[in-house]
């Protein structure tokens, strides 16, 4: 059973500059068809200050942490033993190329379902830009597979 005392554990803040090149690559990888996600000129013509980050781009910020998989060590689980169960986003402002984001993250909850057959861990994060404006919040929930860690 996962260590419930880790609920509330905070992870070091992560600072990320949203680079144009990174947005272009992310747009390509997610097969965005709208050029506001990869062409600065067209984005500007459509009233955006620069290239727009798509809805799921925030997922990349977590992987910019110095130790993105520190939580596996903390929880005593392995990467092959988990799956992404849920993802929730609340958006307050758009993110554009050139923004400097700061992510704060913590373990929001650890819980079980089906009499402990399934265990879940959720991470709550918030993202602020260079103006210290909250741009989004997210909750990512992972599920342990196979009870391999029991």
């Amino acid at each position, binding site marked *: 059973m996962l260590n419930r005392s880790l609920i509330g554990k905070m992870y070091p803040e992560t600072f990320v500059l949203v680079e144009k090149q990174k947005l272009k690559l992310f747009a390509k990888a997610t097969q965005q068809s709208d050029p506001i996600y990869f062409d600065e000129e067209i984005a500007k013509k459509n009233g955006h200050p620069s290239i727009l980050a798509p809805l799921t781009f925030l997922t990349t910020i977590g992987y910019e942490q110095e130790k993105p998989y520190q939580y596996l060590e903390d929880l005593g689980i392995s*990467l092959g033993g988990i799956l*992404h169960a849920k993802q929730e*986003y609340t*958006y307050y402002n758009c993110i554009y190329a050139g923004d400097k984001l700061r992510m704060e993250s913590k373990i929001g909850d650890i819980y079980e379902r089906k009499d402990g057959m399934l265990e879940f861990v959720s991470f709550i994060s918030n993202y602020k830009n260079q103006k210290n404006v909250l741009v989004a919040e997210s909750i990512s929930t992972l599920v342990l597979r196979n009870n391999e860690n029991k």
Partner: protein
Amino acid sequence: MKINEINTFRIGDEIPSLITKPISRSMLDLYAGASGDHNPIHIDIDFAKKNGLSDVIAHGMLVMSFIGQAMTNIFPQESIKKFDTKFISMTNINDILTCEGKVINLEFEDLLKRIFLKLQVRDESGDKKLLGSAVIELILNEKKDITHE
């Protein structure tokens, strides 16, 4: 022009569905690099097998990005306020995904129209991969929306 169409959305209406190309290994490889999610379960078949799968599986977040695109194809991204998904089953190599959204509720506050969408991604055989919901807020220019009662 997008705006005029979506302002007339009623409960039960569906957004245009998005159909993906077949999921391929190179697609997952590209997404791993672009997102920073290098979990080998998405790119390394040996690792996938060691962990009880028959092959690599797609990143849930890639599937989420497809249904997100179905929404931003019709709604301005800044109007999307909430976007939640549950990953129901694994997405496999060669799956062709259909991403769908349906209006399940509407709310009006002065010039604000709030649209509640139910989201779904399924493969060709109808297996559900993702279920979700989204909240969209549109500012109406004038109170002439035909669905406003």
